[in-house]
């Protein structure tokens, strides 16, 4: 792949190229395809006859939109059928594992493509590690230079800790989240939480307990179900703080037990609560059972006009049944009909 590799090839590689070209001609093999993350994303530009801008085939051969540039193993302006706009149900979503590559020039012939393929094949960098391995290495490098410690990287690296995709937001809502700094729009829920992280955690857990799905809690925590007057609390490193609080509580319990103190129930209860909160952050849930509008989901279990820890306590106790309200026609988010992405690159 590199210039060095190519330079070292010499006459021997020329022979390999020549023989391979001959072999391919003789075998009249079908159009070679290149797979990335298990998805066939492109075909070589055989259609160009080795000369000029190949059309890149059709949707089946890897270029669902606009065709390719006529070279490279998986070419085509990033419009392979794997990520083409017409290729999925959403009409705008993309398969997350699709990718495309343009080569250095345009109009390569068959022999040059074979040369490129062979260069890749013999490349010490690309040989045998696979896309996932290369991506993993790149993630490490990005994370290392992103100011995060190795411990933080390990703690946050697992995609499982975020769970699976629950609901896709429409562009307007996503942009509103960006404008709000991802932690509230000023139309927040009534307060009563330690901080914004506590609000999100509690409402996510509350929504899940009530059967609405985590996204309902997350969105209401950020945008609120009804106009409110409380300014959002700035976000903090909630998870780290929670873990630290749990560690402190456990240390306290151990100290009490070592000292022979019998009445440790309060500390044990606090530890159990903290463990539940941490588990709620990590545990993936099943698909939402309720498919209405997140804005109208009623999380106010005790009907006191505010959503807080008391509602979660009651919900956990099984106090409140879920009564899914009517969903307005113009509801922007409907989990049941939201544009569906393929799996994220996870």
């Amino acid at each position, binding site marked *: 792949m590199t210039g060095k590799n190519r330079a070292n090839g010499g006459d021997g590689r020329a022979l390999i190229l020549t*023989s391979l070209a001959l072999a391919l001609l003789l075998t009249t*093999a079908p159009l070679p395809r290149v797979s990335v993350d298990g998805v066939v994303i492109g075909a070589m530009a055989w259609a160009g006859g080795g000369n000029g801008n190949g059309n890149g085939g059709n949707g089946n051969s890897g270029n669902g939109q606009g065709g390719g540039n006529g070279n490279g193993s998986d070419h085509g302006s990033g419009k392979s059928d794997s990520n083409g706009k017409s290729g999925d149900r959403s009409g705008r979503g993309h398969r997350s594992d699709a990718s495309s590559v343009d080569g250095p020039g345009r109009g390569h012939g068959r022999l040059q493509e074979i040369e490129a393929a062979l260069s890749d094949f013999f490349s010490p960098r690309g040989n045998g590690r696979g896309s996932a391995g*290369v991506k993993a290495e790149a993630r490490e490098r990005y994370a290392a230079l992103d100011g995060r410690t190795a411990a933080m990287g390990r703690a946050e690296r697992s995609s499982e800790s975020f769970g699976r995709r629950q609901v896709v937001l429409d562009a307007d809502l996503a942009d509103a989240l960006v404008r709000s700094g991802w932690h509230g729009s000023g139309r927040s829920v009534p307060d009563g939480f330690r901080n914004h992280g506590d609000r999100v955690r509690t409402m996510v857990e509350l929504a899940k307990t009530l059967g609405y799905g985590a996204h309902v809690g997350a969105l209401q925590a950020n945008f609120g179900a009804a106009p409110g007057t409380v300014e959002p609390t700035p976000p903090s490193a909630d998870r780290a703080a929670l873990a630290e609080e749990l560690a402190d509580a456990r240390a306290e319990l151990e100290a009490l037990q070592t000292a022979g103190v019998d009445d440790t129930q309060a500390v044990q209860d606090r530890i159990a609560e903290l463990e539940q909160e941490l588990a709620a952050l990590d545990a993936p849930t099943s698909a939402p059972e309720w498919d209405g509008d997140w804005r109208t989901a009623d999380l106010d279990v005790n009907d006191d006009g505010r959503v807080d820890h008391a509602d979660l306590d009651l919900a956990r106790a099984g106090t409140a049944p879920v009564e899914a309200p009517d969903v307005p026609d113009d509801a922007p988010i409907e989990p049941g009909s939201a544009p569906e992405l393929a799996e994220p690159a996870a």
Partner: protein
Amino acid sequence: MTRRPVTALLLVVSLPLAGCMGTGQAPDGPAALYTALGDDDVALAAATLQRSLESEPQGGTARWRNPASGNQGSITPRDTYVSDSGHFCRVYDEELTFADGRSGTIVNAACRGDSGRWVWLAG
């Protein structure tokens, strides 16, 4: 004369190689472009990743360019979703363009962790 047997041998060897190419046992694909990034490139790309996912609207592009290497890239968030755990996540295109003309687009996803940093998801 001496090359004929060699050529014939290489022909035999190349047949399975051709088979590999046609069965998807390909190199790393566009993700392999990451391996060509220098450390300074990565620093720029990582910072751009955070900036883009945090601040760019859907479809907006944040770019970086390293004058020293001539390499450049961009991050374009294209879809936003809420995960099971209630975290906000974004699917994005990362485009890399190298001084030697190679370029490619890699699709990744990241979630906004509790620390407020965007975590590139494994995959």
